[in-house]
């Protein structure tokens, strides 16, 4: 069995990336995620697996290196924090438009603007509602433990390649900076050129046959063809929504009051549920693991059973909109959040549940 290790969420991502057999990481440092590249540089995977680790001259350069690497069928990734992700959005839209797989990590900090280096979840809209231009979607995974930071590297890459679509790990400064126990996945070999040719026949690998040309582009000047492309994207998105929703329920079975929270907020909510149960309040927690596709169906079902839902987020109320769409007016939905890098405690969440839902 693999050894249990103690490490930061950011470090876990770096180790998991090497072990997944990632071909390349391209990044630019920014708090609170700099340990990802620092760990990769310290591990020197170019000496062992041959993985490229490169500090680009900017976030924009890094995402375009990812675009290029993805076009050649390689497992490539980048990471940043909120302001840096904003810079990458043009590239992300291009990658989505060219239907290429890659992994992007956002360890969120407080915004808007340069904001603060403290944790936040205020990039939910940016991540799941587009961010960049055009009708595209990002497969979004929200880890709530260091173990999930490690596990979601493989899951993110696998989903990205299954659907030829960029995937994002949406974490925040808490999950990035905290240390917990983690069991790392076993080391896998990097894909060979032969395997890439077989698994990703669209990849640009040089002119292999005289009459076969692969073209990677998001540009299409004929609107009729561009509409067809968009319809194909949408069909893919519907398929992802039907097959890839992931969530976790905590004491939901007999819950009268439901908390909905993702990532680090779900940790504080778990404690808040435990505190509520100690007081005899039947609270439960639904934790969306994929933020897109969203847990709409299961929330719709809970809307028939519970007396009220509180969406708990480190932002001014973003996921709450998707919760309201999911329950479609069947039950009261409120939001509780802290802003700008301030983190709520479990007691504050319990008080908010009482004030906004139980005894409004």
């Amino acid at each position, binding site marked *: 069995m693999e050894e249990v290790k103690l490490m930061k969420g950011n470090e876990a991502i770096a180790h998991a990336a090497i072990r997944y057999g990632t071909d390349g990481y391209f990044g630019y440092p920014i708090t609170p995620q700099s340990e990802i590249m620092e760990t990769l540089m310290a591990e020197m995977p170019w000496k062992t697996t041959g993985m490229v680790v490169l500090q680009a001259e900017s976030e924009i350069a890094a995402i375009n290196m990812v675009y290029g690497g993805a076009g050649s069928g390689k497992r490539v990734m980048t990471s940043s924090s909120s302001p840096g992700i904003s810079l990458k959005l043009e590239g992300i839209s291009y990658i989505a438009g060219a239907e290429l797989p890659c992994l992007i990590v956002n360890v969120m900090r407080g915004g808007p603007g340069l904001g603060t280096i403290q944790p936040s979840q205020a990039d939910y809209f940016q991540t799941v509602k587009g961010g960049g231009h055009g009708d595209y979607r990002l497969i979004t995974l929200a880890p709530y433990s260091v173990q999930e930071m490690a596990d979601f590297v493989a899951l993110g890459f696998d989903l990205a390649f299954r659907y030829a679509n960029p995937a994002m790990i949406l974490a925040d400064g808490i999950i990035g*900076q905290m240390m*917990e126990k983690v069991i790392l996945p076993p080391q896998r070999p990097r894909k060979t050129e032969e395997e890439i040719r077989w698994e990703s026949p669209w990849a640009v690998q040089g002119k292999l046959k005289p009459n076969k040309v692969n073209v990677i582009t998001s540009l299409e000047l004929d609107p009729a063809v561009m509409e067809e492309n968009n319809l194909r994207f949408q069909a893919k998105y519907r398929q992802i929504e039907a097959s890839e929703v992931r969530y976790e329920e905590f004491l939901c079975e007999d819950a009268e009051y439901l908390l909905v929270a993702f990532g680090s907020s779900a940790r504080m909510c778990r404690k808040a549920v435990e505190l509520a149960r100690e007081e005899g309040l039947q609270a439960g927690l639904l934790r969306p693991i994929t933020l897109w596709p969203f847990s709409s169906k299961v929330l719709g079902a809970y809307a028939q059973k519970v007396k009220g839902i509180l969406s708990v987020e480190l932002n001014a109320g973003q996921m709450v909109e998707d919760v309201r769409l999911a329950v479609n007016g069947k039950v009261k939905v409120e939001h509780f959040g802290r802003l700008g890098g301030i983190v709520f405690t479990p007691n504050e969440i319990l008080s908010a549940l009482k004030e906004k839902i139980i005894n409004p």
Partner: protein
Amino acid sequence: MKHEIEIIIAGFGGQGVLSMGKILAYSGLTEGKEVSWMPSYGPEQRGGTANVTVILSNNPISSPILNAYDVAIILNQPSLEKFESKVKPGGILLYDGYGIHGDIGRKDIRVYRVNAMDAATEMKNEKAFNMLILGGLLKIVPMVSLQSVLMGLKKSLPERHHKLIPMNEIAIRKGMEIVCAM
């Protein structure tokens, strides 16, 4: 002992607050416990206040961020002002006599002092400061064994610093001797 212990360690950046928390976390790991280590991060390491929340538990840990603590280790005055009120009734506040001026107001908690700064100066080793505090903590709350702490030190220190472990052990034992109830 109790199945979960929630600790805040708070002081100035450079006092070894985060590394002391890390050693506790590694010690817990050595004993097969669930652990979480949540630092305040950012400009602290350049001289501001720094703190870290460490939880050792026999069960999976829900929130790494807490309202109140079983143990507060307070190494400077601003941290006392911030965290004194957040010790659970019946909990423990451990402080360094050099860093704190004046009295601790709370009467519903147990208060201990380790004159770690003085002892470190006496040992001519300022870097022993946090290990003296850790010794004091382990004397009053033996949450992990000294053996596990020495294992934890081995795991959290880079190999080139392993020669310093015996000095750390001396400091921990000294801390155990000089901690006193207030």
